[in-house]
């Protein structure tokens, strides 16, 4: 019997090592797998490369990981916000490396990784400082920048409901990067509000088929707060 359920968040992240590359879902706090990140902090892995849209909001999630000094490098589109103080402090102290990627390129590069593409010519960023030094090409009169897939050893995401095969549905805009991270990470770990019996999810409405998911942890208390 296939059963991807893991008893606790601690078990789910137990093999994330120092120096790992970890892709984390969430746009702001929506979809941020706070409890998986807490477990990762408790586990103690450091020197991590993190991929997320932001660089942490408030005190929980990616912000906590940065606060605790576990992040060597962050790849994101929008680090600076009113409540990104933990990132801001580390960045100004030169304690964290930042790779800034336009959000659409971030999404497309994650999707390309999941789909097995070698590289993509994307329209965004051409002629800007974020494309400096990158290969460009004019195709049918439009200029494109060559961008490479963003892969990760681990993906940590939050979904609404999941079953033992790893099929997932999400909730509202907490879906955001979840489905494409699930496809791009070698080991995708999901915290779901509710683990449901196989067959409870309508086959027409599964958003992430279980093939993209390796571990599922049910964490019932996980409602989304305004700020971490």
């Amino acid at each position: 019997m296939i059963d991807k359920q893991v008893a606790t968040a601690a078990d789910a992240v137990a093999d994330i090592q120092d120096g790992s590359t970890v892709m984390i879902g969430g746009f702001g706090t929506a979809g941020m797998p706070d409890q998986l990140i807490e477990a990762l902090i408790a586990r103690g892995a450091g020197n991590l490369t993190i991929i997320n849209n932001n660089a942490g909001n408030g005190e929980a999630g990616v912000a906590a990981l940065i606060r605790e000094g576990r992040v060597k490098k962050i790849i994101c589109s929008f680090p600076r916000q009113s409540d990104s103080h933990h990132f801001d402090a580390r960045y100004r102290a030169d304690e964290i490396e930042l790779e800034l990627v336009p959000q659409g390129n971030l999404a497309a590069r994650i999707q390309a990784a999941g789909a097995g593409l070698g590289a993509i010519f994307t329209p965004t960023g051409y002629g800007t400082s974020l494309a400096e030094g990158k290969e460009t090409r004019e195709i049918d009169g439009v200029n494109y920048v060559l961008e490479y897939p963003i892969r990760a050893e681990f993906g940590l995401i939050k979904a609404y409901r999941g079953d033992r095969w790893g099929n997932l549905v999400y909730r509202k805009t907490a879906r955001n990067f979840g489905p494409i991270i699930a496809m791009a990470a070698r080991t995708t770990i999901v915290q779901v509000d509710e683990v449901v019996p196989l067959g409870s999810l309508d086959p027409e409405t599964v958003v992430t088929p279980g093939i993209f998911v390796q571990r599922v942890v049910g964490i019932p208390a996980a409602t989304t707060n305004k700020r971490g």
Partner: protein
Amino acid sequence: MMRLNREEMARRVAQDIPEGAYVNLGIGLPTKVANYLPVDREVLLQSENGLLGMGPAPAPGDEDWDLINAGKQAVTLLTGGCYFHHADSFAMMRGGHLDICVLGAFQVAVNGDLANWHTGEPGAIPAVGGAMDLAIGAKKTLVMMELLTRDGRSKLVERCSYPLTGLGCTSRVYTDMAVFDLGSAGARVVETVEGCSVDDLRNLTGLVLEG
């Protein structure tokens, strides 16, 4: 001269958004445009974080923090709206499916170059978000901004000095004094506020402006 305040600017932009348009309103000033869309006009607002058919803010206390906009504010979903993931959301922009985006700006050049993501100041933490994707992806990119900085320099310029968001992507700029069409042929004044002449604008901006 009867300069428009920010609410009036938003109302002016809203007038140009037609029935049935798919529109993304950038964070900050452009968000206000939503408040002035005529209620008898169906306009579908897209939010980059995976939402089409965005409705107004919920009543205080009714917020659902899984339902937010690009500025991380709580919003609602209109009847007929839907959710999707980030790659599909940016495919909407980059694939040319969005009719209009409205963005704020630090500077816009007469040829349509846009600078709105980074001041380039040393020590400033850069953040680009979806600005570059929107700027080059929407069928029409509209900018709304005050024409002058606080110290009186024109934000409509011959050539941007701030780091660029996109090349030649802005087709029209709405300001507190005038509306300009931009393009490879330069800037053209579409309309001015009461008491403002094209020559006034030429003096303020130092630009060659078609009247």
